[in-house]
């Protein structure tokens, strides 16, 4: 399989020296789209983005132009644009590398998008742990101010725009858009009750657009080359080019930019296939919150419709790849531990369900499961599923139920045999491995 399938748009300049520097970005035509946009009718930009078929890259795939058109322009409050760059989903690794490589693509997207929704303030919310990215982005924003692309009267027009880079404190839930808004306002990050939706009462109770960083970074190319061009990539309902993060037991893990609808088989080829001497066992199509898929689904088109038809979710297009050495009990436990740790604690099923399921899974991992544990877990998952306040809990339900669906016997084996005996852990890692000690003093709150 050749590299023809790649459609470098967002990643077009990643191979250039110092691509993140403003001069290099401008030298390749950077900020021309923004200059063009501020001379356009804002509604025409919204129309253009609608026509391009761009859908949100944060996981839900909501049409970006349509989202922008929900902003009630008659509302006297200021309008805000908020960029979601909290990227904390296990397996998802696209916004962070993109911002390292080409922060100005996002800044340019922010200018165009803010202008389209008539915002004079935009906030870029970045996951707190990635300090190097925050620094790079801050520098890019400062340089854009200096160049007159941000601030008062940008590009010589009468349009003012201020951009704030805000560092989160490292909570997965703060990627959920309403929790993000609470966090941005200086509160504890917990999802808000909807309605009102952010478009009506978001940041500081004012109309707010929240978009994923990749969504916004896709906008400059659309403005530069047009909606029709964008639609030449991708499938009918899932247009455009996107970043797939391929990780795990592949030869060349990394970000691959290809049209939506590319199959996993193609991506695996690009990534050099499964590591030598091994075979694919299962993969996630869109990060840990999406039900796992198996080699039978290698030819599923990785677009919103295709993955949904296969019983999963495209999510963030994060393809975590696991070969036959991996215990699915172990991956499920690790993921569930992550959700238990990241549950914000607001609602009962997520908070208590994750606490309970981790303990059951831990027993199974240790070969101390009891007859009926699998059925019990499925029943608990049913009690959580779709009843939680936000979709974080549906994420751990998704990977538990899908893992049991495909590999039930591995869980049942946990009634008598530790997972590490069936799947020696050292075999699935690339580095010398010592099994972690299992802590049982879990109950203590302090």
């Amino acid at each position: 399989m050749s590299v023809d399938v790649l459609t470098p748009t967002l990643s077009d300049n990643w191979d250039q020296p110092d691509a993140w520097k403003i001069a290099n970005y401008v030298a390749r035509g950077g900020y021309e789209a923004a200059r063009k946009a501020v001379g356009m009718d804002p509604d025409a930009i919204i129309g253009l983005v609608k026509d391009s078929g761009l859908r949100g890259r944060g996981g839900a795939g909501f049409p970006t132009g349509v989202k922008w058109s929900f902003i009630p322009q008659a509302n006297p409050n200021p309008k805000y644009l908020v960029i979601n760059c909290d990227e904390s989903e296990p397996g998802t690794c696209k916004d962070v590398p993109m911002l390292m490589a080409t922060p100005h693509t996002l800044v340019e997207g922010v200018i165009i998008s803010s202008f389209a929704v008539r915002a004079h303030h935009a906030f870029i919310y970045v996951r707190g742990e990635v300090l190097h990215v925050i620094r790079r982005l801050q520098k890019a924003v400062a340089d854009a101010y200096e160049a007159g692309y941000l601030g008062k009267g940008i590009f010589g027009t009468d349009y003012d725009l201020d951009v704030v880079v805000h560092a989160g404190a490292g909570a997965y839930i703060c990627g959920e858009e309403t929790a993000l808004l609470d966090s941005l306002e200086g509160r504890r990050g917990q999802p808000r009750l909807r309605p009102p939706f952010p478009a009506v009462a978001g940041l500081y109770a004012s109309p707010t657009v929240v978009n994923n960083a990749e969504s916004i970074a896709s906008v400059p190319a659309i403005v530069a080359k047009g909606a029709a061009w964008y639609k030449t990539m991708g499938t009918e309902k899932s247009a455009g080019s996107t970043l797939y993060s391929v990780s795990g037991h592949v030869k060349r893990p990394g970000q691959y930019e290809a049209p939506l609808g590319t199959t996993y088989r193609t991506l695996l080829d690009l990534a050099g296939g499964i590591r030598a001497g091994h075979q694919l066992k299962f993969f996630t199509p869109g990060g840990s919150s999406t039900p796992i898929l198996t080699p039978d689904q290698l030819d599923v088109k990785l677009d919103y419709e295709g993955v949904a038809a296969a019983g999963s979710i495209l999510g963030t297009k994060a393809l975590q790849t696991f070969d036959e050495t991996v215990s699915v009990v172990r991956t499920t436990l690790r993921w569930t531990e992550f959700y238990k740790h990241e549950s914000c604690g607001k609602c009962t099923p997520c908070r208590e369900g994750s606490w309970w399921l981790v303990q059951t899974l831990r027993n199974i991992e240790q070969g101390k499961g009891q007859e009926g544990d699998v059925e019990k877990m499925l029943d608990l998952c049913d009690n959580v599923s779709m009843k939680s306040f936000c979709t974080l809990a549906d994420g751990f339900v998704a990977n538990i139920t899908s893992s049991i669906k495909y590999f039930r016997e591995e869980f049942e084996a946990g009634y008598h045999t530790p997972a590490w005996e069936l799947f020696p852990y050292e075999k699935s890692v690339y580095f010398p491995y010592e099994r972690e000690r299992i802590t049982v003093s879990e109950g203590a709150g302090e």
Partner: protein
Amino acid sequence: MSTDVKKSDAQVAKADLVTATIDGIEVHVPKGTLVIRAAERLGIEIPRFCDHELLDPVAACRQCIVEVPDAGNGRPMKPQPACALGVMPGMVVETAATNEKVAKHQRGMLEFLLINHPLDCPICDKGGECPLQNQALSHGDGESRYEGVKRTFPKPVNISAQILIDRERCVLCQRCTRFGEQISGDDFISLSERGALSQISIYASRPYESYFSGNITQICPVGALTSVDYRFQARPFDLVSTTTTCEHCASGCELRTDHRHFQVKRRLAGDDPEVNEQWNCDKGRYGFCYGRQSDRLTHPLVRRDGKLVPASWPEAIDAAVVGLKAAGSEVGVLTGGRLTLENAFAYSKFARTVLGTNSIDFRARPYGADEAGFLASEVTAKPMDVTFTDLEQAGTVVLVGFEPEDESPAVFLRLRKGNLKNRTKVLAVAPFLSNGSKKMGATLVPTAPGDEVKALEEIASELEAGTILLVGERASLVPGLLSKVRQYAAKGVRWAWIPRRAGELAALEAGCLPQLLPGGRPVNDARARVDLQAAWGVAQLPDSAGLDAEGMLTAATSGSLKALVTAAVELSDLADPEAAKAALASDSVFVVSLEQRLSELAESADVVFPVALLEEQIGTFINWEHRARPVEIVNARAQSVMTDVRVLAALADALGTDLGMRTPPQARTAYLEISDWEGSTPKFTTAGAFGAAAGGDGVRLASWHLAVDDSRCLDGAETLRQSAPAPVARISAATATALGVHDGQQIAISTDAGQVVLPAAVTASMVDDVVWAPTNSGAELFRTLHAGPGDLVRLTVVKTAGGAA
């Protein structure tokens, strides 16, 4: 007195109703009504923890999940929390009653809630009245499948001096934190940590100081929040509950008082949507121990050889009769401001028909020259006008001489609600923007005490028809202010007088003022007297105007008043306690005191009669709205059966006159018989010219009573007192600079009479050349300074030896 008028559902226009179906039954409700409320109307109970009808929905506990096969648009919804879902036309909802999936969700949710719950019900104060217990039994499974490790926390920990938290019992419903944000405005508790380790915490730097903290123990759906005073005191099923009225201020909150073995164990907020909704203040909740202190009187005392000694009832009555007879009609009656209508009425009639005097006054507090006339003419016998609900819905509310959070906490809550929900504009004519004012979103009209008339003139454009003006009991101390209120009233401004004490409105109705007979009859109106003479069957009522409280004390000093009957008057409440003490101590005045606890006044009394506590009798308060508030017998095994009415009846008998009533119910009947008076009402003539307060050297004193202070009615509520705001002397930055002090430094407020030393609190909003200090927190301001609000005092820096503060 008026009866309350409730808006009936019929008044909600039919057109606003939408029809939905819950469990196959049609329900018609205003659009947007929450499904959980709509279901309640049908008698369908949906279990819940976080939902509270007076708090905004959070939909956090997920216990109330229902299925919605049709959202009203023909499409189903994913499972929805009934507490946050608004009813839409044509919506179809299924609860556990008709949908097995919902029943399973509910069982599952309860199972989740219990996995980390300690299940220590046998030692939990909530056990027996616990929504978690109850709903686990009604909607949960008998057995848990959980065999894992429970989360544990050290328990309990103090949130404040009077509130404890057992974090492991907490179900994280956020009712307590939402109460702090949405109701009281004291958001000093918050969630910390996350996931199953989430917990209710206090801030390291901000103490949980709130006058309303007890409410969170009441709305906590589990035993996570408990009060120190009630912890381990009783089991709910051993308690006998009585619905009654709080005696601590003129809001008249409904209370649920619980006793066990005839001892009150706790008081909870009652549920009266028109008055206190479901809240009360901590003073009302915890201030019930004053009657069980060592100074509680159990038998009469008479003075023999200069000393008060125990006496039998006949002895004491004889002694009182001798003294009162000797005084003839040169006698007066001070009733204080805390009596029920029934008791106040008995005093009023006793003064007129037994003692033959109009010298009666309920005002045990500083007051201005024109107050009695104003109250008699403008406040007494008026129908209910401004209500709590009006405060919530008013466009603009102006406060003058009134600090709601301290002086009538339930009014504060309602104004805050109005400000939050209906953007009610609150203007505080005050010397500084108090914390309470901030929480009500009030705008300060910066005013030195004494300059209120001028301040009102400056905001005259706000005082138009529709505005509500709330006037506190301190207003009469400002010359001309009450006249000003009347002028605005004539322009259509609605207004209410809100005194601090619970019994003041009732005292007015009962005629406890020199110029006022019961029911608003003017003493100087012959027709009014004749009317009452006929009703009471007496030949002659005294027709000369009597003395007011200050007049009586002056007359006692000069010797022209020979005897005084007092009802639980606290000397320290008076404008000049020392002068009053001296007046009463004089040998020429014979003092009969009826009181619950031995007071300072009793030191000068010749006969002291013990009277029943409020919890031992029935009665009526009239709150500031003019709404009758029933007081019920909580403790049927009373220590003293003698109410004020009963003692006065016995004295009347011994003096040869029948008082015509022996019990509070008889007093009420007797009052109701004469309460209608359609003749003339007292006329208010303004006293003195309008003008600014006197100038001179020094700064002006501003002061009011903090809700939680050294008041004797909080004796025994020690943990509550520990959370009282620390006393400070507030001054402006300019005043501080002029004085050369910094924040926190000790300063002395002084007059020729004495001085009070307090730490300076430099307050940004404070007007210059004014000092504010609490009336009775740590020091008795009036007694020490012989000065009150508006008077001039001196400020000096307190020199500290060796630099030590």
